[in-house]
């Protein structure tokens, strides 16, 4: 191909009637891009509706659009330019058709945001600005249109320019130019306007020429979502498109979330040329592996180094598209890369209106439901592990769509803030482990002890009474001849977990080790009682899954206010003073158990009552015969 720039798609966004279609028309006219006969057709169509020549009818092709003078869906029209053609995507400005604006913007490589000089920045200007950033547009030009209506006043332009600068500072997107124009008369569209000598920047056409087609992210770590596994002939081919990075025959691939690894034996392709040995971001591939692994659609392949995060929970910023309000606790389907996963929106943390002037900074709190077109910060939870990247690390692998039955209800960007990568603990690091077989069975131990081994897991806020109750129960059980031992979170932190702090990752690892240790005690026939805040539901669920003996989750319950009043260790005071970071209940979340085996509410109970409740439960749970 020649040296011309490849075709670039540019979406025109902005508030209704700020002049998007007129600008499209002016650009088509200035570049002589309209097909033969189109002007005549549009003139005819306009006069049939009793209107003067209507540029919007070039792109508004539907009868309903022309009859009502409304753009319903984005259109696409080619602009012929010397350096390389551009496709203009004229997006609807009405709020009602915002899903179509997003569709148009998401297929574009760059954007022009049109703002009316007289009306200034309006609701849809803010909303479209936010959405351009949200869908991933990184090249933006802003035009301030209808300068003729404000007498080409540089002060009016400067005021809009500075308001825009303040607004854009809240987004990731920066405008390469802000251009004062009159689309109707052509000022600063194709040539510099003599009526605005004070403006020294580029014309719209010059600014458009600077846009570039998107480059595939070669330098990010390899991400290959597996789209399908084919067995058309004797090859078992894993097919997908490289989202980022590079791949070569011989590479060891890690598949997430199954955590399997294998080497790339070949890259398969159909065609006359020899099969490739390497592939790069943006290319569709088919690979075969050196091991017959069972891999399914939805897995995410990477190299072993710089692998994606694995988690059952993440934070997300949603754009809520549905007229049906979002509710906390709502079950939805996550479409992430090629994975389709049932998830629950666990918590709604913050809701904002992107159409408001201060939309991105002002919070409207965390109501129970969320209206259409809101930006919502949420916690999303899945039952099984998901492989993902935080949006800030990898914007192609960190975004997703939510579906409710047969409707797309939201787009979202992923964040791992406050959550730990669960991969390190889900993956045994050593190979060649051969487990030896015990000669003493659990039944033999039960027969000797008079009770079975079990993990009794006490979770709850600091100050709820976990340790007090556990140690008292331990004493009583010991006196009655039980094999019993308390693993106290704080005590174990001085020994086994001395290397761990209070970051989300360390907390997660702390709980994993407690779980593993408790499981060993329980296997040895002990009633192993764990007393630990263990704030994350996923970590407790993992401890339950990892336990090789019966596991009982006990929620020692008391509100933050009650615990803070007790504050036996003076920790709440320090946390409020900012001297302890990440303190659960103050600056870090506590995820209440939803299916605890036993709840002991210590708010109004005496210690004696709480201990009695626990003892009653435990003696039955371990099948005591003594």
């Amino acid at each position: 191909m020649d040296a011309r720039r490849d075709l670039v798609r540019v979406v025109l966004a902005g508030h209704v009637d700020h002049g998007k279609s007129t600008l499209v028309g002016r650009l088509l006219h200035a570049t002589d891009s309209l097909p033969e006969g189109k002007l005549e057709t549009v003139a005819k169509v306009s006069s049939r509706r009793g209107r003067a020549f209507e540029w919007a009818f070039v792109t508004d092709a539907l009868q309903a659009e022309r009859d009502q003078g409304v753009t319903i869906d984005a259109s696409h029209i080619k602009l012929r330019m010397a350096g390389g053609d551009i496709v203009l995507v004229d997006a609807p400005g009405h709020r009602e058709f915002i899903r179509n604006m997003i569709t148009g913007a998401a297929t574009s490589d760059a954007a022009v945001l049109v703002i009316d000089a007289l009306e200034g920045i309006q609701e849809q200007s803010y909303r479209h600005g936010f959405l351009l950033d949200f869908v991933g547009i990184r090249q933006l030009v802003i035009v301030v249109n209808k300068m003729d209506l404000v007498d080409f006043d540089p002060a009016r332009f400067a005021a809009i320019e500075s308001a825009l600068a303040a607004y854009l500072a809240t987004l990731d997107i920066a405008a390469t130019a802000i251009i004062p124009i009159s689309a109707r008369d052509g000022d600063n569209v194709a040539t510099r306007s003599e009526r605005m000598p004070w403006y020294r920047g580029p014309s719209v056409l010059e600014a458009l020429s600077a846009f570039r087609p998107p480059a595939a992210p070669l330098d990010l770590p390899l991400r290959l979502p597996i789209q399908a596994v084919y067995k058309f002939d004797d090859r078992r081919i894993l097919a997908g498109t490289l989202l980022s990075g590079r791949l070569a025959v011989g590479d060891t691939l890690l598949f997430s979330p199954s955590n399997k690894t294998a080497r790339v034996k070949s890259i398969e392709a159909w065609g006359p040329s020899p099969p490739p040995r390497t592939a790069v971001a943006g290319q569709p591939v088919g690979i075969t592996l050196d091991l017959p692994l069972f891999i399914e659609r939805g897995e995410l392949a990477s190299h072993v180094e710089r692998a994606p995060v694995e988690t059952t929970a993440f934070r997300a910023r949603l754009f809520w598209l549905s007229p049906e309000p979002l509710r906390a606790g709502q079950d939805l389907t996550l479409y992430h890369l090629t994975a389709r996963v049932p998830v629950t929106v666990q918590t709604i943390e913050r809701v904002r209106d992107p159409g408001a002037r201060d939309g991105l900074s002002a919070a409207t709190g965390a109501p129970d439901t969320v209206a259409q077109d809101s930006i919502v910060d949420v916690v999303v939870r899945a039952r099984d592990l998901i492989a993902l990247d935080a949006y800030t690390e990898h914007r192609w692998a960190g975004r997703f769509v939510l579906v409710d039955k047969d409707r797309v209800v939201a787009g979202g960007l992923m964040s791992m803030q406050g959550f730990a990568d669960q991969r390190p603990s889900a993956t045994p690091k050593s190979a060649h482990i051969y487990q030896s077989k015990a000669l003493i069975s659990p039944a033999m131990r039960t027969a000797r002890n008079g009770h079975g081994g079990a993990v009794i897991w006490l979770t709850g806020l600091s100050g709820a009474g976990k340790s007090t109750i556990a140690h008292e129960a331990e004493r009583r059980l010991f006196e009655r001849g039980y094999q019993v031992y308390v693993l106290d979170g704080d005590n174990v932190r001085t020994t086994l977990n001395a290397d761990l702090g209070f970051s989300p990752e360390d907390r997660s690892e702390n709980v994993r080790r407690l779980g593993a240790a408790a499981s060993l005690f329980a296997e040895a026939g002990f009633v192993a009682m764990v007393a630990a805040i263990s704030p994350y539901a996923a970590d407790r669920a993992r401890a339950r899954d990892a336990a090789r003996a019966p596991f009982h989750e006990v929620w020692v319950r008391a509100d933050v206010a009650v615990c803070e009043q007790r504050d036996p260790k003076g920790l709440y005071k320090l946390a409020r003073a900012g001297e302890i970071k990440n303190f659960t209940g103050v600056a870090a979340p506590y995820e209440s158990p939803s299916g605890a085996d036993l709840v002991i509410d210590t708010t109004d109970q005496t210690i004696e009552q709480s201990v009695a409740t626990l003892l009653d439960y435990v003696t039955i749970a371990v099948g005591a015969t003594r």
Partner: protein
Amino acid sequence: VDRLDALEAKSIAIFREAYSELDRLAMLWSLGKDSNAMVWLAKKAFFGHLPFPVAHVDTGLEFPEVYAFRTRYAKEWGLDLIVAPCPPIEAMDPTLPPAARSASRKTAGLKDLIEARGFTGIIAGIRRDEEGTRAKERVFSPRGADARWNFRDQPPEFWDQYLILKGAGAHTRVHPLLHWTEVDVWRYIQREGIPFNELYLARDGKRFRSLGESDITFPVASTAASLEEIIAELEVTRVPERAGRAMDHETEDAFERLRVDGYM
């Protein structure tokens, strides 16, 4: 990764998505340049295989050269070809203008085929740059039991995530070439060496830009007698691609009426 590679990559991903998500799939093979490029892309997507049938919805009014092409390449490419007949013109909506009424036989033939074979996915080679209403299409366009296009309520489609509706009698139109332009298709045909019908080449100062039924399709003035000349012509021409398709030009709304009713 150049432009043609990027276009090809997106089409291949769409083919694979359709084949993963739709259990009864067929691809329309109208025998024109776009549908030949689709056969090629599908073979790339499935590593030399074509794991679903191709269907020619046949009005019986194609040009003889088109039938000759069908006979030759159905065999050479090893296609599982369905030739689906269309009902007679008398059964079509008489309020449509003549050319559109003739074209609507294709819609009816397609609906009969979908019903007879229970297809849940129909792959069609339409492109956004061909025509104003096609520009507003989705890659995966949901259709109810009546096959109609509900342009007022199309699903949002972004980040290559496609919603595929499943329901009794419903099907999905899959458009793997939606993002291509006319000259892209010809450049790809040139790069890959894909066969194409000789009717596209100029003879006596005229060539077909777009192939359709012989009663409603006309050649346009052109001297482009080779692939290279076609590409050179498309770089500069201002004649629209479908200038020779009578059904597009009869009345302002004729083509939209066809498409809303389920035409490709």
